[in-house]
């Protein structure tokens, strides 16, 4: 076995080690397994949020898009660079507080508790399960392809080894393993892509030299409207391209769960700064590398392999193995979070909510692990058939999830008047619009990006639903909503997530949720509604 393959497998085994390290902690309670006991600090929150959001698309789809469309593709990078900053700024503190006040362990459960509607949980769970698994399966294929190219194994073996490791550490270590590995993978991605950028950019004469070369090949590569000015005058496409990543992350359940797991609401303060720095240093480089490939390797047959080809061209074997680990890191950090969230939705939002309401903590944990395992195995089987256009599937699933949940999550922390009818209309309106826009290729006819169309329809549906919905939220939920607002007093011990042994409030909440006992001496009247 070559030294570079050995290095690559050391990386994979390290990820496995992280999962196994957290196994014991993850087994203590659903809070530990599903949310890492709400103990994540700022760097882990910020970097794992971004690495989870970006996926293998960043290393394969993004550069390919830049290779094909020129500078127009940078609109996606611009949105991506602001994604987690906007996400933490808008949702971070409030969602952290409100999710704890409502006793919610999953992002779908949070919506049900906030808007007091079983229908929201049913619709949300169905859409989340379908599209999270679709998204995860697309990542499986990307993982298999990447590992096949790097290790020389057959696609089937590469798939089983790569995805097998992801499934194992996710099942064993739960959310904490996923978040910590996401942080480490984010750092690896950053080092990897920066090293490649440092080698490649001087080769094309820096940014100015690169642009001069692109101009000489085809000046439209430098246009904001795309190669051959294909999107000329279509601001709807450009705004949609920026928004899909700039605000779309706020609609992804596997991303917003990072807010719920922050150590305390004020973790958002440091996290937003970490995001601002990390994103600007990282997100643009893969696209610039895609542009560089137009000059360096214009005849490359598969544009999605731009970065691996650049690595093999500029780095010796051992170094290339380390750098290519970054691609696997990007895929794995998204894949594990998707699996984790899909498993959480199945166990917490389906099994515990509808099938076995009296399930013990151990049963919920077991079901969660089984769901991830079974989903993963099914994913491997589906991925062996390699459905075409992997990244089209990624963008589609991303868009539908974003259009389904974005408006409800924002409304949950900012709109006192939002009611369950409005939220249901927003979820269905947003998702259906996105699906139809993609199915009938309406972007070409209207000049409006599917995400922008879904967002507009989702907002309109929310406003109309709120108007006709006759059921305002109950007073306990409204009190929790007010408590979760910024600049409102909330006991520090609850805010920090200190557990039942220390905080009387948390103790009462926990009692109420778990035993449905009457809450006495409670400091938070909002809890009257909590805990299904």
């Amino acid at each position, binding site marked *: 076995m070559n030294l570079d393959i050995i290095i690559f497998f050391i990386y994979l085994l390290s990820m496995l080690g992280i999962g196994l390290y957290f196994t014991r902690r993850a087994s203590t309670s659903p809070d530990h397994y599903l949310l890492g006991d709400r103990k994540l600090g700022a760097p882990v929150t910020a970097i794992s949020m971004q690495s989870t959001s970006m996926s293998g698309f960043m290393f394969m789809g993004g550069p390919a898009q830049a290779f094909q469309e020129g*500078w127009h593709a940078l609109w996606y990078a611009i949105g991506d660079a*602001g994604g987690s*900053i906007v996400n933490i700024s808008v949702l971070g503190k409030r969602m952290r507080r409100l999710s704890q006040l409502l006793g919610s362990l999953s992002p779908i459960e949070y919506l049900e508790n906030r808007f007091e509607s079983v229908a929201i949980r049913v619709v949300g769970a169905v859409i989340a399960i379908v599209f999270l698994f679709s998204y995860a399966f697309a990542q499986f294929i990307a993982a298999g392809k990447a590992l096949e190219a790097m290790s020389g194994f057959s696609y089937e073996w590469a798939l089983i080894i790569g995805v097998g490791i992801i499934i194992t550490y996710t099942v064993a270590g739960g959310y904490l393993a996923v978040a910590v590995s996401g942080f480490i993978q984010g750092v690896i991605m950053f080092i990897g892509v920066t090293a490649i950028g440092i080698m490649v950019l001087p080769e094309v004469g820096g940014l100015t030299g*690169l642009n001069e070369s692109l101009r000489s090949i085809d000046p439209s590569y*430098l246009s*904001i409207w795309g190669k051959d000015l294909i999107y000329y005058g279509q601001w709807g496409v450009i705004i949609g391209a920026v928004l899909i990543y700039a605000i779309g992350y706020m609609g992804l359940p596997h991303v917003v769960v990072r807010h719920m797991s922050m150590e305390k609401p004020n973790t958002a303060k440091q996290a937003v700064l970490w995001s*601002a720095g990390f994103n600007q240093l990282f997100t643009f480089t893969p696209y610039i590398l895609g542009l560089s490939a137009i000059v360096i390797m214009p005849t490359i047959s598969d544009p999605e392999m731009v970065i691996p080809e650049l690595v093999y061209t500029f780095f010796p074997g051992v170094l290339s193995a380390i750098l290519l680990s970054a691609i696997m890191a990007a895929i794995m950090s998204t894949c594990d979070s998707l699996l984790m969230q899909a498993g959480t939705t199945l166990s917490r939002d389906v099994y515990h909510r509808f099938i076995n309401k009296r399930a013990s903590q151990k049963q919920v944990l077991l079901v969660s692990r089984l769901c991830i395992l079974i989903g993963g195995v099914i994913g491997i089987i589906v991925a062996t058939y390699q459905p075409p256009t992997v990244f089209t599937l990624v963008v589609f699933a991303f868009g539908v999830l974003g259009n389904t949940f974005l408006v409800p999550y924002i409304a949950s922390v900012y709109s006192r008047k939002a009611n369950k009818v409005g939220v249901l209309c927003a979820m269905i309106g947003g998702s259906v619009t996105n699906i139809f826009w993609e199915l009938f290729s309406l972007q070409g006819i209207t000049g409006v990006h599917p995400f922008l169309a879904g967002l507009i329809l989702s907002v309109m549906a929310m406003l109309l639903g709120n108007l006709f919905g006759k059921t305002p939220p109950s007073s306990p939920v409204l009190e929790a909503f007010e408590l979760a607002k*910024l600049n409102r*007093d909330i006991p520090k*011990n609850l805010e920090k997530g200190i557990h039942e042994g220390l905080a009387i409030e948390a103790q009462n909440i926990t009692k109420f949720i778990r035993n449905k006992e009457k809450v006495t001496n409670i400091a938070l009247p909002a809890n009257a509604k909590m805990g299904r």
Partner: protein
Amino acid sequence: MFGLPVETALLMLPWPLIWIALGIFMFIKFGREEKHEAQRNVEKGDDAK
């Protein structure tokens, strides 16, 4: 700038600075909120620690 057409340079290049400015602004905003909350809790005699 950087050999880009004016339109592309003006519309695309400022974005990293805009995002960093937003990050710093939010950091300061969250910091102030944290301070005010701590102050109010102390004034109320809440166990702010």
